[in-house]
């Protein structure tokens, strides 16, 4: 995390480090609590399966979004900034599944204050490349020297 990414060192096509996370019900509970979310599909298995027809309780879309953002902010380092972030919820994720949060550099351009802007295609996925959450992000990075 303390590593810094510099605009100069980034190339279109670069992959950012993949963040792999397997969410469990305890983490889901803490996320519900931290976001004041009482939606039963995230903690009441009977409700999720028998009333809503899901195979299990659902990992929150906003938790997936936060993990995907974490993959980006971990990569940009402490002098990088998240400028914009866009995602879509495509599929459901369940506790116990390995979720992967990935990103690829798609563009580089000039930013303000002598910094550089980098565009990313980002994605949450699971299993055999099943897309949970496609998206894009733009980050601001410092230049070397």
């Amino acid at each position, binding site marked *: 995390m303390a590593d810094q990414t510099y605009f100069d060192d980034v190339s279109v096509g670069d992959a950012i480090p993949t963040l792999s996370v397997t969410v469990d019900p305890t983490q889901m509970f803490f996320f519900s*609590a931290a976001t004041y979310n009482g939606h039963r599909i995230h903690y009441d298995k009977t409700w999720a399966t028998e009333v809503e027809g899901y195979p299990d309780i659902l990992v929150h879309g906003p*938790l997936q979004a936060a993990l995907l953002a*974490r993959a980006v*902010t971990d990569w940009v380092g402490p*002098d990088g900034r998240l400028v*914009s972030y*866009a995602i879509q919820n495509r599929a459901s994720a369940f506790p116990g599944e390995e979720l992967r949060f990935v990103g690829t550099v798609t563009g580089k351009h000039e930013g303000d204050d002598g910094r550089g802007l980098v565009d990313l295609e980002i994605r949450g996925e699971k299993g055999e490349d099943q897309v949970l959450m496609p998206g894009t992000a733009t980050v601001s990075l410092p230049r070397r020297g």
Partner: protein
Amino acid sequence: MTAETSLIPDEAKAMIGSETGRASGTVVKKEFQRWAAAVKDRNPLYFDAEFARAHGYRDVVMPPMYLSYVTLGVADLDTLRPDGIPGGGGGDLPLPHTPRRMAGGENITFHEPVYDGDVITSVRVIEKIEQKHGRSGDFILVTSRTSYVNQDGVTVAEAMGSMIARP
């Protein structure tokens, strides 16, 4: 799509273009740190003031993705919907034919950092309410725009968000 099959009541359509939610909240460091811990995001910018200052911030900075939670209100547990979502207030739309709710997507632009003690006001405007046809039947897609302004009148972020409502 004929009128008979519309899942969108007129009273919901009438809310398009209007402000449906305005809320304020004070940023509390411990709350955003609890959120970051729940994401297992131990970024020192969120936890270590000295580290944050060394990187140009004036204090620990709020994780950008925490923003939408700052202005959440206090739920009345007696008026929750059966699925545990707040039933009234908060800009909820009258969509009785499509009670199941899912997050659609979001698109946020962050302009300024947010710190402990900042007072954030969010203003939400409904942009679109559309009936869509999906693999598992028709659903409603609600698109809204939310601006987040701090106590100095500075817009710290703007977000477009969508919500899916299913029968």
